[in-house]
C-alpha cells in the first residue's frame, strides 16, 4: 500500500459562538438539504448554493421570504437548530458539504440519522444531540447567542442556560486536532496485512 502523505490539514475546532437560526421541521431528509440535481458535480465546491434549494427559492428562482435562511436575522449564523431525525435518507456527503459551504459549523437537534451524523463529523460539522427541554428553549428563543465548546463538551446559551453534550472520544480528538481519520487506519497497515494473510 502506498503510504502517501496523510496530511492533517483539517481545521481544528475548539470553541465557537454564533446566533442561531431555527428550522423546526422533523425528518429533514438529505433530498431537502441538497436536491439530487445538484449532485452532478465532481468537486465539493459551491454546494452551498444548492442548500435547501427547493425551500429557499420558488419556481422562478426568487427567494422565498418566509424561509428562515432567507431572513436578515440569519445572516452570519453558523449554528442551525433543527427538528428530530435530521439528515435522514440518502448517504450523500453533499449534504454536510453544502451545510459547511453555506457556513454552518453545528446542527443542534434532538436526534440525527446515522449516516448523516457520521458524514458531518468527517467534515468538521458538529451534529449535536440535545435534550427535548434544551431544544424547546432554543426553538423558542430563535437568534439567541450560543457557544459550543468541544473542549468542555458544553453548549452555553447567552440566557444562562447550558447543556453538556456527548461525542465519541475519537471523533472529538480528531476534530480538536484537525486529524484526518484515514491516518489512524493507515497507521495499522501491519495489522491489515496480517488480517488479509490469515483469513482471505
Amino acid at each position, binding site marked *: 500500500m502506498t503510504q*502517501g502523505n496523510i496530511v492533517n490539514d483539517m481545521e481544528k475546532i475548539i470553541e465557537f459562538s454564533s446566533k442561531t437560526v431555527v428550522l423546526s421541521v422533523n425528518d429533514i431528509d438529505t*433530498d*431537502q438539504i441538497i436536491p*439530487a*440535481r445538484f449532485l452532478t458535480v465532481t468537486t465539493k465546491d459551491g454546494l452551498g448554493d444548492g442548500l435547501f434549494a*427547493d425551500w429557499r427559492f420558488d419556481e422562478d428562482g426568487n427567494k422565498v421570504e418566509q424561509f428562515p435562511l432567507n431572513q436578515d436575522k440569519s445572516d452570519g449564523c453558523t449554528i442551525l437548530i433543527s427538528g428530530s431525525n435530521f439528515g435522514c435518507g440518502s448517504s450523500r456527503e453533499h449534504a454536510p458539504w453544502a451545510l459547511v459551504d453555506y457556513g454552518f459549523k453545528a446542527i443542534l437537534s434532538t436526534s440525527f440519522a446515522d449516516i448523516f451524523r457520521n458524514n458531518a463529523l468527517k467534515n468538521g460539522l458538529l451534529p449535536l444531540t440535545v435534550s427535548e427541554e434544551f431544544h424547546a428553549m432554543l426553538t423558542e428563543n430563535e437568534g439567541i447567542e450560543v457557544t459550543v465548546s468541544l473542549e468542555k463538551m458544553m453548549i452555553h446559551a447567552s440566557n444562562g442556560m447550558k447543556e453538556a453534550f456527548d461525542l465519541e472520544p475519537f471523533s472529538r480528538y480528531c476534530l480538536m486536532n484537525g486529524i484526518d481519520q484515514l491516518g489512524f*487506519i493507515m497507521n495499522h497497515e501491519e495489522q491489515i496485512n496480517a488480517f488479509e494473510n490469515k483469513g482471505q
Partner: protein
Amino acid sequence: MVIQETKETPAILYIDLHLIHEVTTPQAFQSLRDKGLSVRDPKKVLATMDHSTPTLPVNSIADLDIVAEKGPADQIRDMIKNCEDFGIELHGFGSDKRGIVHVIGPELGATQPGKTIVCGDSHTSTHGAFGALAFGIGTTEVGHVLASQCLLQRKPKTFAVNMSGALKSGVSAKDIILKIIQEVGVDGGVGHIIEYRGQTAGLLSLEERMTICNMSIEAGARAGMFAPDDKTFDYLIDKPMSPKGLDWDEAIQRWSRLVTDENAEFDKEVTIDVDRLSPMVTYGTNPGMAMQIDDVVPASNGDLGHKQSLNYMQIEADKPIIGKEIDVVFIGSCTNSRISDLHDAAEILKGRKVSNGVRALVVPGSQAVKKEAESLGLDKIFESAGAEWRESGCSMCLGMNGDTVGNGQLAVSTSNRNFEGRQGKGARTILASPKTAAASAIAGSVDDPRKYS
C-alpha cells in the same frame, strides 16, 4: 475485524466488497490523488454506472452528449477515467454486467453471506438479504475504503422484526416493508441493524428479501439482514463470482453457521402479521406515512409535519386514496426492478392498456435483468400496454439522469423514497409495489391490484 473497538477508538473493520458508482466517488478519488495514495485492492471493488446514467441507449461515449446533460455526462467521463487511473474494472456502457449497484452485486454472486459490504449509497442495506453485513457510507469513507480496504466503525444495536404468516395473493414484499416502516417510524431503527426473522422469512424468495432489506434505511436502520438458508445457497450456486467446486462446499458449511442463536436477545423487537396484510401505499412525504390501500387517508399520524405533508401531496385526509388520479407510473429502482418485480407488473399489464394521459416507465435493474425480461417477452407486454421500456439504471428513483416526474405531477412509484422533490422538482410520489403500480397505470388512478388476482 482488524482491530476491536475500545472506549477511545472505533473498531477497524475489514471490507470484503466495495461497490462504487459515479455520483458518490469523484471527490474520494480526488482525495486519493491529493494524498498520493493508490487503491489498495482494486479486485475488491465492483464499479458500475447507474445513478446519473441515461436510460436511453448509449452506444459510444460520443452518444453521451446527445442523451445526457453536461453535468451527468462529465460525471460519467470522470468515473471512466478514475477507474482507468486506479486500475478498477468498470461495468460501464457496453458491459452486459452494468446495472444498479444493488442489483448487480447479488446477480454476479459478488454479494455473499458473511461478507462486509459497503457503498456510497444508503440502500446498500439490500445485500443483507444474503446474510451479509452491508451498509451505506459517505464519500470520505469511500476514500478510506479505497485506500485501506478498511472502515472505522462502532458496534450497532440490534433490532428484531418478527414476521409470521404468508403473503396473500396481490400482496407483496414491498407491502411488508412499508407496513414495518409505518409501525416503527422513519427513525425507529436509528443506531440499529435489523434482523428480519420468523416464519415468513423462510417463505420469502431472495428477491423479496432484497426488497425488504433495501428499505431498512427508510426505518432509520443502517442495515437489515436475513439469516442465510438453502434458498440463499440455491440463488448463489451458479453465479459468476460465487465460489466453485470444493470452495463452494466449504462456503456452504461456513455460511450455514451464520444464524442468530435461538435465545438471542435484541435491543428492540416488533412483530408483523403478514397474513393480515393488504397492499400498502404512502400518502405523505416520508416512507413512514404509509396506509392500507383500501383505507381512508389518516387525518394525523401524531407528527407536526403531517398537515404540511398532505398539502404538498395535494391529498385530502379522511378520503379514500383509491381513485386518486395520477400522472406517472415508475416501475424500477433497486427496491423493485428485478425479474420477479417485472413479472408481477407484466402479469397485470398483459393484454391491457396504460390509461390515457399516464406516462408509464419501466426500467430494469440491470442489463442482465433487461436481457432476461426480453427473452421472456416482458418488454413486448409493457410496450403493447403503452409503457416505455428502457436501459437499466436508477432513473426516476432520484431523477438525476433526465428521467423525472414533472413539477406538481403525481406518480405511483416502486422506488423507496417519497420525499418532496425526490423524483424531480415539485414531484409528488406515492410508493407502492409493482403490482399496485401496474394496476394504477391501467386505472389512471391509485388502484388495488387484488382485483387482478
